[in-house]
């Protein structure tokens, strides 16, 4: 992928990465949305949606509580969606390889958010006297530069990830040795395990919640039988 081809994807990654924390937190950065949009950019929204759903299940494990550190799914969704959507249909290694690239991007991008927050804190320290004096200019400068740097951060992460992973995923898909059914099964098992364990982690303290989940599974089983 050339830099010119990566630029629109980088811009999308920048905008969706900004949504994670800075603006507007409307959850367009959730992987189910980000990967689908990226797939649509490449011209294959169903592929983007498929990997987006898998990433969304895994993302249930990392909800953004307080000041905790978590992976950044906006840029990662864009990278995963565009990589998977760009692979020829029916290639068994496309989904696992693109998913791995997306998870690595999420991890690295999460780290880049920590670096950015430290940078903002250091800028704040430099302008502390002016802020304590109630300077409007100092406050606006700190705030708007924080948002601009976040946009830049997400864009750079996306472009860098695409530059590294696009040729890598293509090469992996070309020499992939596992069968198609097994490749899909591994991804499905990973997504299922992480999602169910995440739901248990989030909701285990709520009374009767296991019964509601079981009722849901029974509804699904009913649908399966009646179809």
């Amino acid at each position: 992928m050339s830099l010119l081809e990566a630029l629109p994807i980088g811009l999308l990654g920048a905008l969706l990465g900004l949504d994670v924390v800075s603006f507007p937190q409307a959850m367009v950065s959730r992987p189910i949305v980000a990967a689908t949009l990226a797939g649509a950019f490449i011209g294959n929204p169903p592929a983007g949606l498929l990997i987006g759903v898998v990433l969304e299940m895994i993302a249930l494990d990392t909800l953004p509580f307080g000041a905790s550190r978590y992976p950044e799914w906006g840029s990662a969704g864009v990278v995963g969606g565009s990589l998977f959507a760009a692979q020829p249909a029916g290639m068994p290694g496309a989904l696992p390889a693109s998913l791995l690239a997306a998870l690595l991007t999420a991890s690295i991008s999460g780290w880049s958010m920590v670096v950015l927050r430290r940078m903002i804190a250091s800028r704040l320290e430099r302008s502390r006297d002016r802020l304590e004096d109630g300077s409007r200019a100092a406050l606006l400068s700190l705030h708007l530069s924080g948002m601009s740097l976040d946009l830049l951060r997400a864009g750079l992460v996306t472009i860098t990830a695409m530059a590294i992973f696009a040729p890598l995923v293509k090469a992996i898909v070309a020499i992939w040795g596992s069968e198609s059914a097994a490749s899909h099964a591994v991804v499905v098992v990973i997504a299922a395990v992480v999602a169910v364990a995440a739901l248990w982690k989030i909701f285990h303290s709520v009374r009767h919640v296991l019964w509601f989940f079981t009722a849901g599974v029974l509804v699904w089983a009913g649908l399966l039988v009646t179809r």
Partner: protein
Amino acid sequence: MTASVATPAELRLRVKLAMYFRLFALQGSWNYETLLGTGIGFVMEPALRLLPGGVDGPAYRAALARESRYFNAHPYLAGVAVGALTRAELDGVDPVRIERFRTALAGPLGSVGDRLVWASWLPFCSLVAIGVYGAGGSPLAVVGTFLLLYNAGHFLLRAWGLRIGLSRGVNVASALGNPVLRQGPLYIACAAALAGGIALPLALQRITGPGRALIGAIIAAALIGVVLLAVLRERAQGWRIALGVLALFVLYSVLT
């Protein structure tokens, strides 16, 4: 306490809209020193211009400095604090009392918001969207369902918080006893569990595709994995384990 500069009803719509819009950018300068603090100052700034002397006056500068210090809350419920603190500043409440009020407000707004939004509403909306995918929904249907459902709650919560804060000022604490905030997370959690029970197998079925050659192995492996992760709950993050397992599988598939 001095005379009020402007009551909530007197605050121009333009000012309220500016504050509401800025609420979406509240975390633009989030950092490990002041957390949301500078964001709170940024959102309140249009209303603080109404203080005597305007942007060059000592009242404005003192209020802006005070409100830009350390603060923490859930971003969607921070509107409650922004509204209440704005009201207090415009009413001329004693700065010492404002500081105490700020400190008291931060904790509850964080925990209530985390329970309602991150641990209930977001997973519920995710699972509904995953369910729409499992039921055969198109990309537009899945993404549209998620964004409309999630943001209906999101936009309303921010608007409610700002309105209730502006109208009640330092007496806003009682608003946190709202049944939606107290009981909502429990009901949403049950709905999310029900949705998860239907949506996850439906979606996994669609991803697996037609044919059930590996279905037994998939279910067995998934059950073992869930039990292992449930046991390791406090010691391991599921997504990190997923990353490790996937990396090993990719390596294996490339080398064989």
